[in-house]
């Protein structure tokens, strides 16, 4: 994985020292809250409903066992013994005390972690395909591109005061596991007819108040031009993006208002103008960074493991977990293991310090100390030998962490919502918990098949509800919690936004409404169809009728 160089280390250490001074000045009264707020936000520190919240970056979702242990230590020492993995591949601590935050940042720095670029109108931490470096269908490790962008964008003077925050996502396979079409810029790694590796460049996607599926402005960008092209896009945005209206400041609004063709032409013209002088990374630069992500020392094995097959045959529960929680690996004899952080009735994305220590240990024993955080709030062990998979499962199961439900109806994405978040209209987590309990039966979950439910507590859409097969959005009606339901969203390469099905449901009725939708699908599906297929074939009408009768209120 990427290792800090001297420059990174000095920079992070300086920032910790600076923030220590700023906290001291805040506590002594030299800084007012208005002066302090932007400084704390630059260091990932928010004020939530009940306490401060520290958002720690996990660049492209990659963690080592050492880092995971440190996260556990921080949870125990400075917080209430747990942390929350978010849809942005970050971890949030919900209860830090202000005067302890500089110490937390110093402890993070010891393991080359920080909380920069988790806030503010800068280029935020790049998110990547969680199977990067391991997926069987991968063209190139998305972390290499992500790291190139990180090095280029970290504290980039020209781009640290953009009109608004800026999110970039990279997927290393044609299949999109990083939701690139709903980011400000999405890069999909592809190979052209000549076998050359490059990117499809998608711009202007996003969720939030104005959800938009991004537009492909370039079918193929050769890898060597990545940075100059990004620079051209950001230049156009920096010059033309609106700074007068917070709600119109994202690049997606600019793309919409200029029109896709005009925007693309402007970017291409800018690119032609700066291309010669821009700082593109050479192939040596790429190679230098790629070396940091060299594959682990795999043990040469055959694609088949008799031990593994025998364990699957012998143990029904293990077999069930393998079916949902494993993904194909590019290295013969290895598997990608998903760890679900969605136990039935649990808080999606939460992990206790003990859980984190166990993940660290399992990764150390069986996955070259590598762990990934996914945007679905789960974890991944990217390099597990097939013959070790059973041992991994036993260790997880012993701690109650072997939920066999990846991509099933109980693998729900949920933002913190009104239990923690200062901006929320309604709770998300307990709705997720109640749905999970309602569909606890594994047989029922398997029968329903792939179904992605995503819940946000407000229009900011941290829970990605627009791209849920079923999306729930919390709204406030006279101080009470209600939920709007959207159907048919998807975040993969066939991205689509959900359609609002009708009037919102109360907190008490929303789980029944979800069940009605699921039962409608079960009744109307054709063989082999998942919920999304049935929805796309039939449209919203039968679902609407099931929820509201033939005369919706």
């Amino acid at each position, binding site marked *: 994985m990427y290792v800090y160089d001297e420059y990174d280390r000095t920079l992070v250490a300086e920032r910790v020292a600076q923030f220590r001074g700023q906290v001291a000045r*805040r*506590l002594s009264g030299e800084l007012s809250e208005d002066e302090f707020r932007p400084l704390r936000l630059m260091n990932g520190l928010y004020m939530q*409903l009940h*306490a401060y919240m520290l958002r720690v970056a996990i660049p492209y979702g990659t963690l080592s066992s050492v880092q995971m242990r440190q996260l556990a230590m921080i949870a125990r020492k400075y917080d209430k013994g747990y942390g929350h993995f978010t849809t942005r591949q970050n971890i949030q601590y919900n*209860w830090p*005390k202000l005067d302890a935050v500089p110490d937390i940042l110093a402890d993070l720095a010891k393991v080359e972690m920080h909380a920069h670029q988790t806030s503010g109108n800068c280029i935020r931490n790049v998110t990547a395909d969680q199977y990067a470096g391991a997926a069987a269908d991968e063209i190139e490790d998305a972390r290499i591109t992500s790291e190139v962008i990180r090095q280029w964008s970290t504290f980039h003077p020209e781009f640290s005061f953009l009109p608004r925050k800026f999110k970039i996502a990279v997927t290393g396979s044609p299949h999109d596991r990083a939701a690139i079409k709903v980011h400000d810029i999405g890069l999909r790694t592809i190979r052209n007819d000549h076998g050359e590796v490059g990117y499809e460049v998608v711009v202007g996607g996003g969720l939030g108040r104005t959800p938009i599926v991004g537009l492909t402005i370039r079918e193929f960008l050769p890898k060597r031009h990545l940075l100059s092209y990004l620079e051209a896009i950001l230049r156009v945005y920096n010059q033309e993006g609106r700074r007068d209206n917070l709600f119109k400041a994202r690049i997606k609004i600019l793309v919409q208002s200029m029109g896709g063709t005009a925007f693309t032409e402007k970017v291409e013209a800018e690119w032609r103008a700066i291309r010669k002088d821009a700082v593109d990374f050479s192939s040596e630069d790429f190679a230098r960074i790629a070396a940091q992500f060299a594959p682990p020392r795999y043990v040469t094995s055959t694609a088949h493991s008799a031990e593994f097959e025998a364990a699957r045959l012998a143990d029904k529960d293990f077999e069930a977990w393998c079916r949902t929680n494993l993904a194909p690996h590019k290295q013969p004899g290895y598997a990608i293991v998903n760890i679900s952080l969605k136990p039935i009735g649990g808080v999606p994305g939460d992990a206790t310090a003990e859980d984190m220590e166990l993940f660290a240990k399992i990764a150390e024993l069986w996955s070259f100390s590598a762990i990934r955080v996914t945007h679905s709030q789960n974890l991944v062990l990217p390099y597990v030998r097939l013959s070790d998979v059973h041992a991994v499962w036993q260790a997880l199961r012993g701690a109650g962490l072997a939920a066999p439900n990846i991509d099933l109806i109980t693998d729900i994405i949920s933002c913190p919502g009104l239990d923690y978040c200062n901006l929320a209209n309604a709770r998300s987590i307990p709705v997720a918990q109640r749905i999970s309990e309602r569909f606890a039966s594994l047989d029922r979950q398997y029968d329903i098949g792939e179904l992605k439910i995503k819940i946000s507590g407000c229009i900011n859409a941290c829970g990605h509800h627009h791209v849920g097969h079923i999306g729930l959005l919390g709204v406030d009606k006279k*101080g009470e919690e209600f939920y709007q339901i959207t159907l048919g969203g998807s975040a993969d390469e066939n991205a689509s936004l959900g359609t609002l099905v009708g009037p919102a449901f109360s907190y008490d009725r929303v789980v029944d409404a979800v069940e009605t939708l699921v039962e409608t699908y079960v009744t109307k599906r054709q063989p082999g169809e998942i919920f999304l297929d049935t929805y796309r074939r039939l449209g919203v009408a039968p679902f609407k009728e099931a929820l509201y009768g033939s005369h919706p209120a």
Partner: protein
Amino acid sequence: MAQHVVTANRLGDGGVVYLSTAGGWTEWLSEADIVDSDADEARLLAIAERAVAARLVVAPYAIPVERQGASLKALSQRERIRAKGPTIHPQFCKPEAGGTGLESSACMSTTNTTAHW
């Protein structure tokens, strides 16, 4: 005017507090000073602003409440959750008002009660 109390977050740890009848800040909504006129609300907010200047709290504001028997209920769901703590972690919630204080209460146990698989 409906009944109101003034709330804020503590500077040191962000904890939810209310201006109390005793003139200081309390963690318990039930101990909050209730006012029902604009003039009294303005008076409380002025006190709160002095506490901001004294670096005790940040961002004070008034919220509508309703007396229900012996207890006091915030009118919005947001404020009810602020008053009690997250609804999903019973172990991190505030005990009923008048408890012995957060640190000594059973509410602060760090054992995870999340139902694992």
